[in-house]
């Protein structure tokens, strides 16, 4: 059975760093894609008002 240290050593530290950046760009792009446009404007407007409509003064 392959050991965890062998598995981790299969990549160089630089490759881990590159993978990290790719992961971030992917997450960022996904959030931007979903939220970047105006089609959610009404929904966002509604959410933004939550603290003002929380029954408090």
């Amino acid at each position, binding site marked *: 059975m392959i050991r965890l240290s062998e598995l981790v050593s299969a990549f160089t530290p630089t490759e*881990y760093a590159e993978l990290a950046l790719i*992961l971030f760009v992917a997450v*960022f792009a996904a*959030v931007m894609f979903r939220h970047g446009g105006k089609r959610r404007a009404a929904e*966002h407007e509604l*959410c933004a008002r939550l603290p003002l409509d929380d029954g408090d003064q």
Partner: protein
Amino acid sequence: MSEPTHATTNETTKETTKETIKYDDVIVRRFLAATLFWGAVGMLVGLWIALQLATPRLNFAPYFTFGRLRPLHTNAVIFAFAGNAIFAAVYYSSQRLLKARPLAMLSKIHFWGWQAIITAAAITLPLGFTQAKEYAELEWPIDLAILVVWVTFAVNFFAMVRNRREKHLYVALWFYIASIITVAILHIFNNLVIPAGLFKSYSIYAGVQDALMQWWYGHNAVAFILTTPFLGLMYYFLPKAAERPIFSYRLSILHFWSLVFIYIWAGPHHLHYTALPQWASTLGMVFSVMLWMPSWGGMINGLLTLRGAWNRVAEDPVLKFFVVGITFYGMATFEGPLLSVKSVNALSHYTDWNIAHVHGGTLGWVGFMVFGMTYWLVPRLYQTKLYSKKLATLHFWTATVGIVIYVVAMWAAGITQGLMWRAFDDVGRLQYPDFLETVTRLVPMYWLRAFGGALYITGLGIGIYNIIRTWQTRPAVYAEPEVSVPPMIRAAKVAEHQRVLERAAEAKIHWHRRWEGMPALFTVLVTVAVVVASLFEILPAFLIGTNVPTIKSVKPYTPLELYGRDIYIREGCYNCHSQMLRPFIDETVRYGMNGQPAEYSKPGEFVYDHPFQWGSKRTGPDLAREGGRRDELWLLRHFNDPRSTSPGSVMPSYPHLLTDSIPWDVIPTRVHVMHMLGVPYDATALDHADSLAHDQAGTLAAKLETEGGPTGMGDKDVIALIAYMQRLGHDIQLSMHVGGGS
């Protein structure tokens, strides 16, 4: 929240089954009072240690020296002042955003448990009980108590989420969830230790790996205690105070996910040019620079929320505090990435520039957000008018001027210090070869810093007076805020909720909205983001052997040196001395010996250092190559009265080291615990640790006497500390044999 098309149906349901609940503001009042009390204590200790650096006569050994009080200051302001403020904000805003009440018993356990922990910290740190890891100094029994109380808080919070009447989780709650989850992870993994006594333990990590874990924790403590909860606070209280919604909800989503994803990677920027492998350091720098963007997104979102309300800023102290607090957030999150750039860090690291940066963030961002929130909450919690708006405004201006003086003084000190350390004269010699020159030059700036800090605390005093006077006009009995709410989502049938979600799915409602309606999944995703990022950085550092090449000449500390190291830890020497020579010519020359430059620090040197002692500040010189530089008598005199050997030194005196006896019986236990951690002590060391320690102490004491030192030091703490100091860098001065990772 549901789609407008569904609103009518839901509204009908709500109208027929409305309930009333009462918010629990008792817990908010308690945490707010604790915030102000501990804030005053923590900041006064901060002022005291600032004065100690300007005039070392204010050190009173053994309990009230800089090394023991500085952790008390940092822990008090982070966990007591900021911590209690976070809890006040969370309990107030979450009840209203979720339309749910916390569980009274858990709230009580949370409050009193947290105050007991802070009290324990205030007692144990001056006594010298410390793990010697910045912001994680508290020893293992207190760490366990923190875990229990934090879990209590988490259960109480998630119980509110479960019992909520509002389906949508507002963005402030996401920040709270991220904080609760991440702080738990950080706390557990950075504090993994093996106890060697009731208040003594050794980190399971050593050297480079311990450093990486510590700054993964340290940086993210800044992120998930001093940043994300306060962003949650901002997203709730700023719209309330401005009476308008947040500028861009879309931007807040981007802000949240970018921050949670990026922050966790940035820790290694605290270790540039150290023995940490370069890939980890560079990774930390890149992510730190990236962090600038979401941080400024959040700042812009906050400031633009005030569009159309700027005229009110001039007259409303709450908005004043918020505007300046958010501006400090922007400044600190610009300065942070700047300091993480390696070439800037080469100058700034170990200097007072970091102190300026940290205090810009804590006094400016955290402090002002807390004060803004406090002034907004106080009339509502005490159900009366604020005693004096003028005093609140005076508090604002006093504190603002105080911060500016503080930060400018420390910028000047830091840059002066960094430039002096690296200055060479025309013929290539260090321009300031005596480290003391770089210390005495800073003393006027230390006075200025203390003045700025005193102003800030004066402002706090004015604030506390104002709040006490407000509290005195409270009603005899508080009215409990009561609101009419829809039925509990859980009670209103999971099936109905499921139908809503299904309709949402059919209508292709945004996936994020659906996550927000499913807090468990949302929490899991946040956890995954944090854990995956952590593992990417930590696993290679632990498991790829080439990260820490072994050095054959590096051997475990002798039993006496190990105990001497524990004294170094107990006295908090790491607060002012680093043990890390960076690969810079000015450092290798400065810390060289006999005209030869020193070796810069290598990862393999620290494999037996549980915990690592690299430090983060050089108020005094680096000690990585201290062994053999001075004789034993010089060291003894220096510990007894630093100014007798180093005129102008700001180091505290430690006369008790010459009178306190070594507790020989603890040494074998400590050697055995180290052995459990993998330090290769042989059978002789394991079986005869105390007699080995006695022998070495006797030899050193005899040497001390031949140097003209006092007699009878063979069983005193000072001899153990001298043994440790003489060992520092000793192994690396031997011939080095670098092998493969093992």
